């Protein structure tokens, strides 16, 4: 509750900057149009027109808000023209990919921490894998998966997974190695098995790292889902909206899809934050 005023202040500041930028960026077009039609614009007219363009360089906030209202609230959630429908499509791939990615990242991290061969050989290649531009190979992945009969949600989720497992690996390797020497020594004196050491010491000690990583992984996963939507023929989902918007120069549509995606990400990341708070509280660490 006490966050409301600060958040509103910041949002207000952003809106002011946004309206200002809209004037600056869209001015050129309005002036050009006026020149073509031999009109002379007063300053208020100029400003008003920069905020009411059809295909502005930067749409004004209220234009985006109107579009959002139109596509979120005024359409049936199941309709193809509803942003809710597209957000839902993207979210399913995001969440599935995030789940898979977190599992994979987790498994790799455990392997790296516990297995010398993996520690030495896998990590450099995990890193290399992340330097491959996903947008370049996403189409190939989709094609290959399609060829072997996998289509629909899973190919997109695979790309999400590809992007989201990495932060989890990096964070978890660090986290699983964060217990100090004495705590590990204790486990040794009790002759704890590796599994016991893992569940009772390394895992709890890695929790702060895990959550920080999962937040990043979730954001990455959403990017992956959107990237994955492009080469699937961009039939549905926020990625498809972005793409379609860009082919037809519909900046307002792009921005509303963008804000929807950000809202989705914020909600998902916020959810992880909530789980984090609950977990750490229950662990007595908050």
């Amino acid at each position, binding site marked *: 509750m006490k966050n409301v005023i600060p958040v509103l202040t910041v949002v207000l500041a952003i809106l002011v900057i946004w309206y200002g930028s809209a004037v600056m960026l869209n001015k050129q077009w309005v002036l050009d149009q006026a020149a073509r039609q031999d009109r002379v614009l007063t300053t208020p007219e100029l400003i008003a027109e920069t905020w009411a363009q059809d295909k502005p360089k930067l749409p004004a906030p209220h234009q985006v808000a109107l579009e959002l209202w139109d596509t979120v609230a005024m359409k049936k959630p199941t309709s193809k023209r509803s942003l809710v429908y597209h957000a839902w499509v993207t979210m399913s791939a995001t969440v599935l990919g995030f789940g898979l990615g977190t599992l994979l990242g987790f498994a790799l991290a455990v392997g790296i921490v516990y297995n010398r061969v993996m520690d030495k050989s896998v990590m450099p290649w995990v890193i290399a894998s992340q330097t491959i531009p996903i947008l370049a190979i996403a189409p190939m992945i989709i094609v290959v998966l399609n060829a072997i009969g996998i289509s629909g949600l899973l190919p997109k989720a695979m790309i999400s997974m590809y992007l989201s497992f990495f932060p989890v690996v990096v964070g978890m390797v660090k986290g699983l190695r964060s217990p100090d020497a*004495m*705590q590990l*020594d*204790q*486990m*040794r*004196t*009790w*002759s*704890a*098995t590796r599994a*016991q050491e893992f569940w*009772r*010491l390394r895992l*709890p*000690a890695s*929790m702060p790292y895990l959550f920080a990583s999962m937040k990043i992984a979730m954001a990455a996963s959403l990017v992956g889902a959107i990237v994955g939507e492009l080469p699937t023929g961009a039939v549905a989902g926020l990625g498809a909206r972005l793409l379609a918007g860009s082919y037809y120069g519909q900046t307002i549509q792009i921005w509303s899809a963008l804000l929807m995606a950000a809202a989705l990400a914020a909600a998902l990341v916020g959810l992880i934050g909530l789980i984090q708070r609950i977990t750490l509280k229950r*662990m*007595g*660490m908050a």
Partner: protein
Amino acid sequence: MMTEQAAASAASVPQTPTVISAQGLNLVYETSDGPVQALKDVDLKIGKGDFVSFIGPSGCGKTTFLRVMADLETPTSGTVLVNGVPPEVARKARAYGYVFQAAGLYPWRTIGGNIRLPLEIMGYSKPEQAERVQRVLELVELAGFEKKYPWQLSGGMQQRASIARALAFDADILLMDEPFGALDEIVRDHLNEQLLALWARTEKTICFVTHSIPEAVYLSTKIVVMSPRPGRITDVIESPLPKERPLEIRDSPEFLEIAHRVREGLRAGHAYD
């Protein structure tokens, strides 16, 4: 004088079977600015049921020696045998209960949870776990604090919780690194008595690091005096005190004599005075 005595006591063959034997032990820590010799030519035999105190100036290698026994550190040279097998085997057979110098409780577990931890690991049943936790909590006078988290406890209470944790399961060999350092005299006396009673009851072998000369003398059957840089054993004193030890024994002449010998040994290890 000291060395003669040391030689004499080393020569006297212990009557009981040997539990821990160290021979020609050396340990060198490699640090970025040169090696640190923490243990040098250490020889020691500890019999079954012995209560051995280690005393010596800070930094002389007491902790290091305990760590070697518990297979937490690998000696640079020399051999250690525990129950006739290398420490690693003994460790895997769960021969040790170790109380570390710092409490080292896990911050995400309550006091009860911390004490329960080794029991879970060793596979005790749930009711048995609960019963043992209760028993040791009472032993160290922390009953009622089971549900608190470590940071909600005072320093001494944390230390007691860590002692409780090591006592909760039945290790043959107890390695205790200054367990009573942060406790007041009264609790300390109380726990000394409790520890002696436990020891008498169970025939455990106990290695005990302390800085208190009276405590060392009161508790031990054998007192090992060490000197620093490099860490060596300068004296091993077999205590003539009987197994039954009321607190009053601390005023007896034998007691004071041993205490005196320990103090002299300690002083010799210090550069000043």
